[in-house]
C-alpha cells in the first residue's frame, strides 16, 4: 500500500471537509468530475453541496473565497493550473493579503496552485509563481516537496487564519510515493534537513529538492558530502535553519525552478550574504530556470529548468571557488 503526493492532497482535503463544517472547495471542474488532476476525486459525492464547480472566473473565485472567509467559512480554492492564478492576482495579493492588516479580521483562505513544469506543459501550464505571491505581505506560501508535507501542510493551510498559497508541484503528483500518511509533522515555517552533509549546503524547495538530492547522491560518489535543505515554506523563510547549515558547510547553492530575477533564490542569497557573510568560504551561488517562458518540447524543457545534472555541475564549480 502506497500513497502518492496527489492522493495525499486529496486525502487532506477529505479530512478537512470531514473535520470542519466550515470547509468547502471551490474551483473549476472540481465537482463530479473530480478536478483536472483528480485532486478532488469523489469529494463532491462524499460531501454533497460542499465541492462547488466554479465558472472560468479566477478573479471572482478568489473574491468569493474572501467573502466566504469573512463570513466564517474556510474555503479551499483550486486553481486549475498555477498559471491561471494571475487572473485572480488582484484579489489574492491586494485584497486577501491586506485584509487582516486593514480590518483586524482574519481572511483564512487556502489557494491550491498546481504548478511547476512537466514535460509538454509549455509556457502557460508550467509556471512556478511562489515568488510573486511571497513578495506581498500578509500571505503564507507553502511549497511541499514530500508526500507527508503535501498532506500535513495542506491541513495546516486550512487551519491557518491567513491566506495560504499552497504551491503543489504537478511533476510530483504521480511519481512521488510514501508508505502511509503521516500522523505528526514538523511545524509550518520550519525548514527540513533533507540530507545531512558537511561540504556544501544546497537550499531547495518543491520538486527541486529531489533534483538536489539526486545531485547530492551523484557527488557522494566523488566523496563530497552535500547538505540539502528543504525550505517547505518559502514564506515564512526559515533563515535560521539555512544559516545554521551554511555555518556547518561554508558554501551555499540555492536552487529554484522559477525564473532568476528576484525570487526565492535571490532572497536566500541576499539574507545569507547580509547576515552570514562571515560564514561563507566562497561566494554564494544560485541556479534557476532560464529567463524565458517555459518551453513546450521535452528536450528544451529539460534544458530550461535546473536538473540533478546541472545542479551537480554548479556544485562542483562552487567547490572549486
Amino acid at each position: 500500500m502506497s500513497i502518492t503526493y496527489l492522493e495525499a492532497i486529496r486525502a487532506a482535503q477529505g479530512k478537512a471537509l470531514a473535520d470542519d463544517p466550515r470547509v468547502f472547495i471551490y474551483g473549476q471542474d472540481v465537482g463530479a468530475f473530480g478536478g483536472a488532476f483528480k485532486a478532488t476525486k469523489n469529494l463532491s459525492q462524499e460531501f454533497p453541496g460542499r465541492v462547488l464547480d466554479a465558472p472560468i472566473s479566477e478573479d471572482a473565485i478568489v473574491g468569493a473565497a474572501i467573502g466566504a472567509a469573512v463570513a466564517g467559512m474556510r474555503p479551499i480554492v483550486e486553481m486549475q493550473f498555477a498559471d491561471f492564478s494571475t487572473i485572480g492576482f488582484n484579489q489574492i495579493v491586494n485584497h486577501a493579503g491586506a485584509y487582516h492588516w486593514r480590518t483586524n479580521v482574519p481572511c483564512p483562505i487556502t489557494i491550491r496552485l498546481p504548478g511547476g513544469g512537466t514535460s509538454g506543459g509549455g509556457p502557460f501550464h508550467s509556471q512556478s509563481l511562489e515568488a510573486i505571491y511571497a513578495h506581498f505581505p500578509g500571505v503564507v506560501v507553502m511549497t511541499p516537496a514530500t508526500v507527508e508535507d503535501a498532506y500535513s501542510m495542506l491541513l495546516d493551510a486550512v487551519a491557518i487564519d491567513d491566506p495560504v498559497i499552497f504551491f503543489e508541484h504537478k511533476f510530483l503528483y504521480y511519481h512521488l510515493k510514501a508508505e502511509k500518511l503521516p500522523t505528526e509533522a514538523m511545524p509550518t515555517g520550519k525548514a527540513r534537513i533533507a540530507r545531512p552533509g558537511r561540504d556544501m549546503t544546497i537550499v531547495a524547495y518543491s520538486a527541486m529538492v529531489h533534483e538536489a538530492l539526486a545531485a547530492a547522491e551523484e557527488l557522494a560518489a566523488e566523496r563530497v558530502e552535500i547538505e540539502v535543505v528543504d525550505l517547505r515554506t518559502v514564506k515564512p523563510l526559515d533563515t535560521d535553519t539555512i544559516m545554521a547549515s551554511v555555518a556547518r558547510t561554508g558554501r551555499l547553492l540555492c536552487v529554484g525552478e522559477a525564473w532568476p530575477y528576484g525570487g526565492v533564490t535571490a532572497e536566500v542569497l541576499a539574507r545569507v550574504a547580509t547576515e552570514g557573510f562571515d560564514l561563507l568560504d566562497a561566494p554564494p551561488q544560485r541556479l534557476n530556470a532560464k529567463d524565458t517562458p517555459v518551453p513546450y518540447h521535452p528536450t528544451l524543457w529539460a534544458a530550461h529548468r535546473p536538473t540533478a545534472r546541472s545542479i551537480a555541475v554548479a556544485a562542483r564549480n562552487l567547490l572549486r571557488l
Partner: protein
Amino acid sequence: MVQSVVERSVPVEDAPLRAEYIKAFRGMLLARVLDDKFASLYRGGKIHGGVYLGRGQEALSVSVGLALRPGDVFAPLIRDGAGRLAFGESILDAVRTYLGSVLGPMRARDGNVHRGRPLTGLLPMLSHLGAMVPVVNGVLLGHRFKGIRETVGATCLGEGGTSTGAFHEALNQAAVEQLPLVLVIANNQYAYSTPSSRQFACHSLVDKAIGYGVRGHSLEGNDLEACLTVVGDAVARARRGEGPQLVVARLLRLCGHGEHDDASYIDPALKSAPFARDCLRLAEERVLAAGWMSPREVELWRAECVQKVEEAVAQVQREPGPDPYAEDWCALASRHLSEGYHGA
C-alpha cells in the same frame, strides 16, 4: 421573468412611504453636511490623501442603505456616504478614518473611503473597481452554507466599473449561484474624466442584465421617490429568492472625482439635463411642497446635522494619531508565522 424594465415613480401618498421619504431626506442631508465638512477640512490641509464625495448621488445611495437591514452585507463605493450612514455606519467611523485616528475602524492603516467593519456586514472597499462584487457573493455563499436565510448583499459601482473583468465575472457568478445580490450602478456620466461614450457602447447599461440572466431595473438617480421604490423592490426581490438584481441609475456627479479635481471636463450641456439636478434640492422641494416638513424643520435638522458633524470632528481632532513605534508591523493574523523580517 428575466427582463429589463424601466420603472417610474409612483405618487408617494401612503404613510409608510412618506415616513421613508422623510427619513431618507434627513439621511441625505446629514451625508451632504458631512461631505461638505470633509471638503472643507481637505481645503484646510487637515486631511492626508484624497477626499471623495457623494454629492448628487445621495438619493440613490441612501436608498440602498435604507433597504438593507441588520444581517445584510453592504459593500459601498466611494460616493456612498449616505448609504453608509443609512446602513448604520457612525459619523465617528467616517471622521476617524479621514483624520487618521487610531480609534477608527481602520486604525489609520487605511484611510478615507476605504473603511468598514466586516463583522457588522459593512465591507471596506478595495480601490480596484468591481473587486467588491465577488466578495459580496462570497459572503452570501457563506450565509448559504451556514443556513442563514433571507439576507441580501448590496454593492455599488459607477458606470466605469462595469467595464472591468471583475464586474463581468462576479455578476455572472452571482447569476450562476442565484445569490441575493443587488448590484447598483450609478451612471454618473464620468469615470474620473472619461465620459460614458468612451466607457461603453450599449444603449443602456441595464441591457446587460438580460445577458447575465438577472433582472434589470433602471431609474433616474436624482428622484428620491424612484430610488426608494426601485431599490427597495430590487432588495425585496433578492430577499425573496429571485436571484441577483441589477439596478442602473442615471444621474450626474456634482463634484470632481475627488476634491483635488475641479471637474472642468464636464460637458456644460449635461448640467442642464433634468437628471443633473441636485437630488437633495429636489427632495427638499418635495418635502416642503407636500407639507411633510416645514422650512423651519428642515433648517433645524440641517443645524442638528452640522452640530453632530462638528462635534465628531472636534472629538476626533483631540484623538491620537498612529505611533510608528507602537505599530506591530505584522501583516499576518498568525503571528507565529510572521518572520518579522523587514529587510533592514
